[in-house]
């Protein structure tokens, strides 16, 4: 995809073409048919008109949003130009975790019809960049090759949950402005307060059309009704199976109804025509064997039954000035139809046609494959599936067909490209200049690209797998140990219910409202901050799966896991868009992303762990992180975690602290009861500990730090000790007080005393000499020379041969390396100063016990 340029580079001016075609006095809107965009420094103006596919500027310069223009209007003042759109999404806009649903690698030029009710479909008209070519590719067909890189292909529909086959009727070919009126009449129906009979009529027909989908060709193809009857029964037989897929049909339609009366009107032209166009366009030369016949068959089916329904339903009472209502009712009607056996035919019919074409294509493929002599089985399998119940062919089918078809398509498509080039001449030329204007900025990033091998993204680093599988825990103690390991994910997080609820409510409200916000979470290490946030996100994601709340993206960064605060930008950008950039560039891109209005944006929940590490002298990283959520269009929720409660006051300058806001929460250290509960819930009825032992551990840890990790580690160690001693004593087999005591001793008792006890004679003497010298001086510091004199004296007292200076220094350094003594650098030789790192009492106690 070539690069498109942003408004930052180029000033564009927007102008309406011609007079308003309609007016809505209530809303004080004037509707227009087309708009011309003139770019500074260019003589030619680009024109976009209704029905055309356009590019909308977004956060990513390289991949602007794609949409179909449905309406253009201006408000009373005439200043603000607004466009109503049908969105398309690129693969990079689909949430990362959903991308695999596609089941294949996306075509670089592939886009998806976007179906999401929650999505705002009105944008500022001045964000339109220009027109673009979009081509519908039937599901079974391969992507055309050899076409211009500016043409986008749409094949599937993305409804925020799954990729589905796209009804070709949803994809209207862009209508040239010259083509006769229907497209422009849409607004009128809605706008005019006094119902105009012709409009009424049209609206009615529109309703009828929508209800029945394909009434139009009725008159022309009555003769084929017999065929349709037989088809109908076939469709009935399949309808049960297709119910689920069929449901999506009306939704798609509804969406369009809501946003584009103009489109509805154009549907007057009827499905049949659309299909004709469609098939002519995409299948062109190959499939023109008998398209009309085939299609008309499929169209035939519906009207017979549906007309009846339409007559019964009180549609005539709908007033045109309540378009939304009608649309809604229509939808209901459509749903009602669904209940009837007949209705699935609509979709069945269209799919049928697709399948027909697919069969044709695949039969051609078959021929080729026969020549090649491979993959025949797969192919035929796919076809069988086609006939049965899936009109989305298996991936293999898709791939293989696209592989094989490519060559065949080239010829037919070359023609199209030529046309298209002519059509989009203006926009292309502007692009060219923009590209050139852009190059200087691009170069640095290009330079870095080869230098930094794209390791993280493309290479899949992995630890080699083990030869033998990991052994499962064998006995109760091992089971308990596995459960007590900090890494094992508990079923629930006990004792953090309140915090969980608070964070949950905060994030949920922000996600639902589509707003942004910051929250600061503090607490000493090991109090479950990160775990709680993860738990919140997990349950929010679950409810998002079930469609209770809108979808959102979750991104996590950790101040400790980056080498420099500015790397935060890089990591966020990479997790958000899978792009790689230098910190500065990433910051600019994120800035744009979070400040530009982009209606399709999902809410992003960003967890910043170890916030204090993101501190820089100018604090711009923190500033940005907290400033983005305040932007109107950001939809960013930032959860920050750090250890100290007063971090905002201590290290942040005012403007940063102010943006962080006062939504704060602090995690208190666990009390002993909570710790006990945590262990008990983790053990989950595995009986490995005596009750008293648990209490001891939790009380001890609660008194020291309240760190749950510590608590779990001690318990784990206790099970080990128990296992060792169990073989000897053969007691209850449970972890008892003695084991816990031993574990606590190991972890908390200072090792200095045992170190002194195990030291050599000279080392012990030297320590004694240090204390003697301290007492003599009345200070806690002495030089080596002074201590050495004492040391020699002590040696004589003990009846040992006095050590010489070298030996004395060796002993001293050895004690220093254990940090029993604190020493200065050894180049000071005799004059290095010595201090004790242990209390004198401890030393004397350790030496006395000998």
């Amino acid at each position, binding site marked *: 995809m070539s690069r498109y340029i942003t408004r930052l580079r180029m000033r564009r001016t927007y102008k309406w073409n011609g007079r308003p075609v309609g007016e809505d006095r209530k809303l004080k809107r004037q509707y227009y048919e087309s708009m011309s965009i003139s770019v500074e420094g260019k003589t030619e103006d680009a024109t976009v008109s209704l029905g055309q596919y356009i590019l909308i500027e977004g956060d990513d310069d390289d991949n602007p949003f794609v949409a179909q223009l449905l309406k253009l209007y201006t408000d009373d003042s005439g200043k603000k130009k607004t466009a109503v759109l049908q969105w398309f999404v690129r693969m990079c806009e689909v949430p990362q975790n959903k991308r695999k649903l596609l089941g294949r690698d996306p075509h670089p030029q592939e886009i998806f019809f976007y179906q999401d009710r929650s999505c705002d479909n009105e944008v500022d008209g001045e964000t339109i960049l220009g027109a673009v070519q979009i081509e519908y590719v039937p599901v079974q067909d391969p992507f055309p090759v050899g076409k211009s890189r500016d043409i986008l292909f749409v094949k599937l529909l993305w409804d925020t949950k799954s990729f589905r086959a796209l009804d070709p009727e949803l994809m209207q070919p862009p209508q040239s402005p010259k083509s006769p009126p229907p497209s422009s009449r849409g607004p009128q129906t809605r706008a005019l307060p006094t119902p105009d009979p012709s409009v009424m009529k049209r609206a009615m027909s529109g309703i009828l059309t929508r209800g029945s989908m394909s009434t139009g060709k009725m008159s022309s193809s009555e003769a084929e009704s017999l065929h349709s009857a037989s088809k109908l029964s076939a469709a009935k037989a399949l309808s049960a199976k297709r119910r689920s897929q069929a449901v999506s049909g009306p939704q798609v339609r509804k969406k369009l109804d809501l946003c584009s009366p103009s489109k509805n009107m154009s549907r007057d032209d009827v499905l049949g025509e659309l299909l004709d166009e469609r098939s002519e366009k995409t299948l062109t030369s190959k499939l023109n064997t008998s398209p009309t016949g085939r299609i008309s068959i499929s169209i035939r089916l519906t009207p017979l039954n549906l007309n009846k329904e339409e007559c019964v339903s009180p549609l005539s009472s709908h007033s045109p000035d309540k378009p939304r209502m009608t649309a809604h009712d229509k939808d209901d009607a459509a749903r009602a139809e669904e209940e009837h056996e007949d209705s699935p035919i609509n979709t069945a019919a269209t799919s049928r046609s697709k399948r027909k074409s697919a069969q044709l294509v695949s039969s051609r493929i078959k021929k080729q494959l026969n020549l090649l002599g491979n993959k025949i089985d797969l192919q035929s399998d796919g076809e069988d599936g086609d006939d049965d119940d899936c009109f989305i062919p298996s991936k293999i089918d898709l791939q293989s067909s696209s592989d094989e078809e490519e060559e065949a398509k080239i010829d037919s498509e070359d023609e199209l490209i030529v046309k298209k080039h002519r059509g989009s001449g203006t926009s292309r030329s502007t692009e060219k200049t923009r590209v050139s204007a852009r190059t200087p900025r691009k170069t640095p990033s290009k330079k870095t690209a080869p230098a930094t091998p794209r*390791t993280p993204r493309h290479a899949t680093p992995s630890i080699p797998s083990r030869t033998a599988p990991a052994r499962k825990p064998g006995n109760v103690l091992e089971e308990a140990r*596995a459960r007590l390991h900090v890494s094992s994910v508990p079923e629930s997080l006990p004792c953090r219910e309140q915090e969980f609820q608070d964070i949950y409510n905060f994030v949920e409200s922000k996600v639902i409202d589509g707003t942004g916000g910051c929250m600061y979470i503090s607490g000493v*290490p090991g109090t479950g901050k990160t775990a709680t946030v993860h738990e919140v996100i997990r349950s929010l994601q679950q409810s998002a799966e079930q469609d209770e709340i809108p979808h959102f993206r979750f991104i996590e960064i950790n101040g*400790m896991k980056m080498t420099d605060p500015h790397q935060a930008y890089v990591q966020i950008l990479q997790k958000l868009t899978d792009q790689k950039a230098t910190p500065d560039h990433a910051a600019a891109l994120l800035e744009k992303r979070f400040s530009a209005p982009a209606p399709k944006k999902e809410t992003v929940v960003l967890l910043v762990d170890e916030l204090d590490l993101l501190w820089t002298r100018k604090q711009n990283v923190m500033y940005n992180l907290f400033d983005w959520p305040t932007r109107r269009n950001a939809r960013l929720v930032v959860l920050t975690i750090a250890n100290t409660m007063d971090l905002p006051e201590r290290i942040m300058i005012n403007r940063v602290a102010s943006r962080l806001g006062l939504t704060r929460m602090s995690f208190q250290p666990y009390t002993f009861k909570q710790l006990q509960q945590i262990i008990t819930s983790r053990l989950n009825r595995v009986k490995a500990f005596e009750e008293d032992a648990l209490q001891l551990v939790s009380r001890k840890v609660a008194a020291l730090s309240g760190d749950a990790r510590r608590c779990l580690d001690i318990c784990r160690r206790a099970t080990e000790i128990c296992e060792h001693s169990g073989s000897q004593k053969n007691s209850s087999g449970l972890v008892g007080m003695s084991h816990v005591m031993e574990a606590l001793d190991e972890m908390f008792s200072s090792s200095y005393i045992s170190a002194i006890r195990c030291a050599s004679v000279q080392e012990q003497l030297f320590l004694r000499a240090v204390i003697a010298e301290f007492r003599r001086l009345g200070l806690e510091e002495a030089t080596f020379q002074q201590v050495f004199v004492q040391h020699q004296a002590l040696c004589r007292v003990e009846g040992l041969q006095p050590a010489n200076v070298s030996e004395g220094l060796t002993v001293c350094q050895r004690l220093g390396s254990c940090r029993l003594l604190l020493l200065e650098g050894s180049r000071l030789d005799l004059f290095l100063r010595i201090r004790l790192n242990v209390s004198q009492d401890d030393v004397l106690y350790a030496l006395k016990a000998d």
Partner: protein
Amino acid sequence: QDRCGCVLMMLCDGVCVQAQKLLRERLCHQKLPDQPVGLDSQYKHLLELLRRTAVHGESNSVLIVGPRGSGKTMVRIHEHHFNAAPVAGLLQTDDKIALKEITRQLHLENVVGDKVFGSFAENLAFLLEALKKGDKSSSRPVLFVLDEFDLFAHHKNQTLLYNLLDVSQSAQTPVAVLGLTCRLDVLELLEKRVKSRFSHRQIHLFSSLSFAQYLDVVRAQLSLPPDFPDPKFSDEWNHSVTKLCEDKTVEEILRRNFNGSKDFRSLHSLLFLAVSRVSVSHSTLREADLIEAWRLISVDSKANVLHGLSILELCLIIAMKHLNDTYDGEPFNFQMVHNEFKKFIQRKSHSIHKFEKPVVMKAFEHLLQLELVRPVDSGVCKVQREYQLMRLMLEHGQVMEALQKYPQCPTDVKQWALSAFG
């Protein structure tokens, strides 16, 4: 008969050299013993811990703390059972180098082909991603050995430690993080969030060896193995070693060494010197060898330097010693030393010539070069050289001892040194 004797000599020579080679290898740590001595429980504890990581895929972190020469590095015997990534604080002086080293050790760089690694940030992200990809049941456990663990704690933000310990506390690739250090207060170096992630297991390697055990070790270290090619020679040798260990002077030497430090490295260097003295002419280890080795090892480093001084320089040292005595260790300058020296020449000396001041100055500067005297403040040249304040870097005893051993030291100089005040 002559020839026969010659052949016998050659044979004997061969055997002797062979024995010497074997012992030298043993003492120079070329061959580590299979198991550390006197640390059985700690050894078992560690082994059990590593076994659990290997078998159950349980992540662990442990610190091995012990004074130098206590056998910490011997854990590396077991490295080859793991995907091991040993890094040393003295070699990998910052996180960037350490990360590169770890990536290399884990053979992850293969993934990237022969491309050079990108930035530090990329490298970190890369390694973390690699570790994240693994899981408890299917990945081969990774053993990180951090030698001189305390030095890693001085790296910026303790990024590496945080990340390794974080992996050990989360459900990722099973890892065992093994820190080796001799600092007892190493936990205090860790930042609190890093500390929280550490499992707080410490294995202390304090040797509680008694002298009898120490002697046993000496005997074992010096004995030839039973599979030595010449059984007759090895019997003879082993017998002599046993006898040697029972000798009083030898025992005294070994005890002094034992009193100095219990680690085996100092013992090895002592025994190495002794073994090196074995030759064809006396093919067994004698007590004289050990005594000589001890003499070489225990000699004071500065005493040797003092023996090489001229009389004039020695006199200056004595003058400085007197100044130290008089002024209780206060720093002095050249002028004071020179005055002291002049006094000695005028009053007491019969054998020492009168030296010109520049000559004395030259001698003084030589002492300065030998660092037997050192300027108090790091020699800013504002002050004239004569008046720069100096300190003597010698202990009273060292001067006296050197004087005793100094060859042909004039009696009046000795007298002067022994006299209380100048």
